[in-house]
């Protein structure tokens, strides 16, 4: 960091002076109002805020349209950090355990600015897809789709492809996946490639499947939760292509780099059997 960037940083600190320090429960509206220590609940398009009047012990509840809310300072769920840590290890099972209650109970707040739900749901969605829980994945993707943001839209479109995968409508999966950018996209693109890889694998289009799986490996390596599933899919594709050496390498990579993933036990067996002459 240079001296200039230090100065810049301090100046930026100053910029924030007028905003004031929001506490966890603070609510900021687009017209600059803040409500502190508020208890909130959701009612349709309104966020109901219980405010304690100044100099009084009684409280009143008022409805704020969601459109007017800039941010609600929700407390970060304790499970998030743990889930993120589990995600970096490809441990889908733990991610699913850690996110289940929150995603289920806090769904009402999913589109409230500042909500942690989209992040928790995103991780959960990836874990569902990586674990092969296709129907649950598609259900959650539909919920994510109600949030108005580019990232949510892409994730939702990719996640709902797993519904078609579950019903065997493979062509729908392929068409849907191709509608998302293959390269330079976001995590939705990676998810769509996973769905497409699986669909093509079922269609015994091993080259197509392999390309889809490896697209995630090569261009979306930070989607850690998907990587074990990607390697398992690539290994199966290699088997289809009679390239047992590369298949064994993929399984070995799962065992070595993603030992906590749901794919690891099976990979261990297959790596052993493939490495035998």
């Amino acid at each position, binding site marked *: *960091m*240079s*001296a*200039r*960037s*230090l*100065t*810049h*940083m*301090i*100046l*930026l*600190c*100053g*910029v*924030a*002076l*007028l*905003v*004031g*320090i*929001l506490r966890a429960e603070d609510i900021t*509206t*687009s*017209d*600059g*109002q803040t409500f502190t220590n508020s208890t909130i609940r959701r009612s349709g398009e309104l966020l109901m805020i219980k405010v304690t009047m100044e100099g009084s012990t009684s409280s009143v509840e008022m409805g704020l349209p969601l459109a*007017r809310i800039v941010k609600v300072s929700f407390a*970060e769920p304790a499970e*998030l*950090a743990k889930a*993120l840590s589990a995600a*970096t290890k490809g441990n889908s099972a733990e991610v699913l355990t850690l996110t289940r209650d929150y995603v289920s109970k806090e769904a009402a707040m999913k589109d409230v600015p500042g909500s942690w739900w989209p*992040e928790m749901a995103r991780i959960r969605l990836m874990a569902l897809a990586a674990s092969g829980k296709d129907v649950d994945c598609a259900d959650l993707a539909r919920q994510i789709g109600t949030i108005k943001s580019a*990232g949510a839209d892409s994730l939702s479109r990719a996640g709902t492809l797993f519904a078609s995968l579950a019903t065997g409508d493979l062509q729908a999966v392929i068409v849907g996946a191709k509608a998302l950018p293959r*390269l*330079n996209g976001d*995590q939705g693109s990676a998810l769509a490639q996973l769905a497409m890889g699986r669909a093509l694998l079922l269609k015994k289009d091993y080259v197509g499947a*392999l*390309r889809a799986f*490896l*697209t995630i*490996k*090569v*261009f*979306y*390596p*930070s989607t*850690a939760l998907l990587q074990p599933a990607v390697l398992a899919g690539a290994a199966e594709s290699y088997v289809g292509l009679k*390239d047992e050496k*590369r298949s064994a390498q993929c399984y070995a990579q799962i065992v070595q780099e993603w030992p906590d993933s749901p794919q690891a036990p099976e990979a261990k067996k297959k790596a052993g059997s493939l490495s035998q002459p």
Partner: protein
Amino acid sequence: MSQPPLNVDNLSSSFSRVVSLLCFLLLFLLVTGAANSAGPQNEATPEDTFKAGAAAFQSGNFDEAAKNFQSVLAEGPTGEALETILFTLASTYFNQKNLPRAEEYYTRCIKEFPDGKNKTKALIAISQIQNQTGRKAEAEATLKKASEGTGDLALRARMAQASMLAESGKPAEAVAVLGPMIVGGVKDDLSAQAAMAIVEIQSKQGNLDEALKLLDQLQSASDLIDNPLQLDILSVRIGDGLLGKGEREKALRMYAIVRPKQVVMDLQKKRIEKIDKMIADNTAGLQKNPKAFMEVNATNARLKQDQKQLQTVLEQFEKLPDTELPVRLRQAKAYDELEQKWETILIWESLLDSSKDPKIREDALFSIAAAYCSMGRVDDGLPALDRYLAEYPAGKYASQTGYLKGAVSLEAGDFSRAETLFGERISRGDTNALAADMQFLLANTQFAQAAADPEKRAKYTEAIGNYKTYLSKYPNGKFAEESTYRIPLCSFQLGDYGKSMEGFQDYAKKFPKGTFIGDVGYRIALCYQAANKYDDVIRLCNEWVKQHEGELMQAEVLSLKGDAYDKKDMAAESAAAYRESVNFAENDDLLKYSLFQANTQYQKLNRWDDIAEMFNRFIERHPKHPAVVACVYWVSKAKIKQGKPEEAKKYLADNILKNIGDRQQDAVEQLLTQLSQTCAKRPRPSLIASQNASPPQESSSKAPDDASASPTPRPSPTPLPPYDADADFAKYLSESSAGNTPLAKARMRFALAQLAGYTKRQDRQKELMASIYKDFPADQLSAMLLSECGQIALERGDADKAEAFFKELMTSFPKSDLLEYAYCGMGQVSLARNQPEEALKWFDDAVNKASADATLAQVTYGKGKALLAQGKFDEAKKIFEQVASTKDWRGEITAKALMSLGELEEKRGETDAAIQYYQRVFVAYQRYPAVVIPAYIKAADAFIKLNKPEDAAKDLKDMLSKPRLAASPLAEEARKKLDALPVQPVQSGTETSQNPQSTSAPAPAPSPSKP
């Protein structure tokens, strides 16, 4: 391929102008903000004074502002108002560059309000003053205090503190200060900035793994990063560091973070547009809440500054070259070095899509093709190479592409295409580094073609020419030695042993320690073998073993020695050589050859003990070898010969049970047959045993002088009870011991069918075999049973089912010795379907692909039938005549060939000639009623056609007079035909028919009445 340089200039160095502007605006906002938050407003003068101060500040008149704010302070405000005015006044002095006064009021603000709302802001400002006045240690300490607070400002103070620590050479402490900010992951602007700062420090310190972990997180949160280019630069820097350390996988993860320029720019533009919308929304909100004017103004001002900063970064970014290209090239290189060819292809394809640079396109097209080729994916590689050549016919990789095309074709076994490709490039005068290799490979393609197809033997001659060209052009080339070896090898293959030996001897002189010297020695001996000089062969083989003991060709040399001794009828020596060869052989074919040749020699010597010992040892050494079950057969046979039939049967049964469920063990049926055959006969005492046993009492007592004595009469032996073969078989093998798998059941039925055959119960045999055909699906049967069932299906006219059995045999047993039955059977299926062209292909395949031997007669006859069906009478006739005249094939197939010749003549309108063929059938081949009866009927038809009903009747009566033929269901047609003929007048006298069998006919047929 060289990599283009990567521009990694840091954009943050161009921020100074923006910073100055921000400084002014910040202080303006500080004041307006402070004014707004100064507490309850009333009509009192201090407020007017404060407003005047604020107005002066806004107009840049800081002296006037300070004067007004001092006046307000003089009024003696208390509480929050005091804190506000102290902070505002301090900020005014700060802007006035009156740093001592500014510091004084900030300090007072903190002192009087140690827990005040402006504490952190004041500490940050003081630290900046301390920094600007050269008191860095104090500044650092002050920032540390500021960072101990809560909220965003404290975090920003923490970042500033870390920055100072890093700049003062304390990177570890800087990381320690920033660490807590990313404990919960990268989830907001500040944690992203902290993570970026840590990555920068760690990468400079060489702690690439730590940096890598954080960059992974940053990539997931890339939309939070203010300066995406900085992320790219850090990723590339760390990636290069890792690549330099050979950690390619990690480097690849770093390179993957870098996004294409356009993507980053679009992202930045969207963020800028988003701020526009936020500002517009905020302004619109003012209409509802005008009192929030100051707050909204401040927020919008901050947003505009953020926007301006983003815009600046964007403008500078636009001027820089795209980082994607150099990064992708690094990725491609790393994946290629990791042998991850599919990944390499994906990277190059992404460059094909994104780069408009023709040089990159050329690299990409070639690299994709090369990657496919290196994976042996000919079907992908060749089109990719063609695509390169189509776009860059004279490109920098054109020669390599031509070479690769040839090499890939060669690898794929398409030798002819490889020859064309290499030939084309050589004829164009290609002189690059690969020209020598192409010359050599051209010769190899010709050699390979000649070796693969006997009809292309002439290619050996062409190969010799090209090997010689190689040697003349590149006498010291890397393939000079191999070319010297291959020239005589071609002559050897052509049967020119004289030239071959000359060439091999030349090689041995030039390369006495050469790679091929062992093979050359062996082949010289082979040349002598071809010249029938067996003593020389034995001598050379012995010398070879002395010189090359333990080398690869030893088993072949010993086997050759065995062949030479065999030719000299020295069975013991021959057996010994073959036995030794078995000990060294690694190649399955040779192993089998030597093993069974030794067996043949031992049989000549009647050395069944050696046979048993040899096969037993083989089974021990090669328990998984496909020949093991055949070895069991020979061991059991030896036991029988040794007079141990019970032991043999038990041994057979044990081994059958071990393998009965294994489809791939072809020889199980052979063992079952052996067991059935052994059980079919009552055991007899061993010949060997009786030979070796003490002489019988009567012989020993018989003195030569008693020769004239009459033999002592002996009582008739007590008749033995009837022998029950089935019961004997059941002692060793039964359905319960064989198991319940479909294959075991089918094999049991096969064994019982064999037993029925050996005990002359042919109906039972047929019934059991038919039950296998009927009850078991093709995919459960062994090769032998598939072949048998296919034949049964053909006999029953069920072509579809026959096809299913034969195709399963071809698919599941591609290396089976029984494959010829499948090809032959498929030919017959095609004939049954009246598809002669298809049939010819199958019959040709039977010869070319399955080296038909046992079915050669059937195959040849089938080809004749197919040609006949195509109306190619001359070709068909030649083939039928060949079948009919081949002595080794004499039997039913001969009868069929004669029959077909008759049909052929009929089709030509030569009825007389046809009759002669039919008559030859029923004269010479009465053993085959399935052919003979139709021959009688066809002869009769032909006579009727010639208007000779009496001759027709005569032949039919002749047939019906033979009880075996008359009993056949086929005879019914003959009867009807005979009944339909005009009644013949009874004639006396001798039969004058041309029927050569007339002498054996029971009653001469009457001549038909003539009209």
